[in-house]
């Protein structure tokens, strides 16, 4: 379970990255967009039996913009599930942060519809690439981007399966974590 929690956090990070990249899509028109404020990346996993609710959170994310693609990275060690031992299991036994320190997400900037008018919002679903444990997998990201005075507030969600990333299904003292996890991201993007 601890391991699964760790995985979930990583996945959440990845999701956050995805969301960020989506938000940066407007960056197409505004190359060099950067993350500002306090981003929030959450991953959600469920352990059974007993419907154990696991949420991992991070507020650390970096973004790069090469003009055509937006890429985001979340250091997995920044993801916290609220239990240190569980975080340690997730990072060291499942995600293997020594080899794969970051969860990353990238997408084509042009795939995102960016709002042009202050307070206007756009929503959509785009395809991106989520990487955790060193394995790329395509993901569908649902996003909302709202134009702000300084840039965009972007929220994004996606689902992922840690087993598809080569991560063992976490199990601890009889509790097994569902490999299907979800990630939520909220981030403010500004023109660099």
């Amino acid at each position, binding site marked *: 379970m601890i391991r699964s929690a760790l995985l979930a956090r990583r996945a959440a990070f990845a999701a956050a990255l995805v969301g960020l990249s989506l938000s940066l899509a407007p960056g197409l028109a505004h190359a060099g967009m950067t993350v500002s404020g306090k981003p929030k990346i959450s991953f959600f996993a469920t352990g059974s039996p*007993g419907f154990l609710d696991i949420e991992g959170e991070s507020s650390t994310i970096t973004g790069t913009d090469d003009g055509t693609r937006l890429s985001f990275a979340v250091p997995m060690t920044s993801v916290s599930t609220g239990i240190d031992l569980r975080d340690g299991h997730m990072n060291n036994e499942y995600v293997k942060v020594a080899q794969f320190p970051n969860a990353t997400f990238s997408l084509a900037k042009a795939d995102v519809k960016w709002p042009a008018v202050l307070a206007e919002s756009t929503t959509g679903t785009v395809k991106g690439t989520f990487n955790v444990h060193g394995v790329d997998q395509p993901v569908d990201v649902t996003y909302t981007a709202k134009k702000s005075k300084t840039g965009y507030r972007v929220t994004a969600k996606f689902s992922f399966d840690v087993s598809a990333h080569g991560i063992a299904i976490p199990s601890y003292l009889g509790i097994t974590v569902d490999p299907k996890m979800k990630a939520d991201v909220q981030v403010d993007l500004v023109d660099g």
Partner: protein
Amino acid sequence: MASSLRAPLRALLAFGALLLAFLPGQAHAYPWMIRHGYTNCAQCHVDPSGGGVLTDYGRGQGEILVRTHYTKMEESPGKSADFLFGLVPLPDPLLLQADVRGLVIPEPGNVRAILMQGDLRAAVQAGPVIATGTLGAVSAGAQGAWVTGSDAGWNLVAREFWAGVTPAKGWMIKAGRMNLPYGIRSENHILYTRSVTRTTTNDDQQLGASVAFTSKRFRAEVMGIAGNFQVRPDAFRERGYSLYGTWAPEKTLELGVSSLVTVAQADVDTLAPRTRQAHGLFTRWAPLEQLGVLAEASLLVSNDDGTTTRGVVGNAVLDWEPKQGVHLMGIGGYCDASFADQGSPAWTGGGAVQWFLAPRVDLRIDVFDGVLYCTPGATATPMGLLQGHVYL
């Protein structure tokens, strides 16, 4: 009757309004575990409504999350979480747990010591079927769980023995002697809300059958009560139902409702035919990472040999854990079991310190003023209690 209902209804509505007023955007509930995301009991307890035998995961969390650590915990607890610290390896289907709980009561010119619990608990799981039971001894009290009948000495007690089956994920059907599903399950059996509704885990278990449901946000249990067959004669046995249902809108907030109706030909207290009802609300909430709030209130309706009375009972507990394993509590209670009697309502208020100081060991000191049980007109008295608990 309508007018007599207004007061308790107003009290209950006020309690509900109070809960709603305190609901924040971010909520927490269970003092120790909900702030870690544990809204349900089923991960850590064999009984999906909590209490009783711990699962392997529950024993592990007892080491990881409950007790104080004096150095950073970097490894899994391993054998230190196992039965008898792993000295006697158990086969996978078997869970064993020994609990010893003692109480010291300082009195003027005397110090009284009571063994409240000396239980061996066991559970065996084979596929979807599980069976559990307890057998132990007490030096005083717990009459409702007595197997032997010594009025002036030690007695054997069997608090729980039931078998259950899990026909589908999240469901359990149980039959046997079990804790009544009502309100916030707590080891603290002197809480008015537990003692007045007769839903303690000390000795208020009854024989019956129940259906329990657990999901990510909801849990519930409904029990048909056949009576306490460790009480004789049959006229004393209560029949009826008991239930609760909860909703956890956040992983740190749980809101619940409870209901109980029982009928006995002769009540164990009044010896008259009696119908008891209790209907209440409760919440478990962690508004801050280190703070838990437990609150519960119930309307009480009793028909004693044709005369109906109404009352109200409530408890609130604030549990602050400034350092893992160290709990500082504020506890309050109010009980007016019958608005019709002339005695003043019972109340209690005080504080407690509970320290999970070592693997499987906790100490607790309670200091309070008021009335220990819901006794109309009783004189408030300052009291102190020292409690020690060890489980293996």
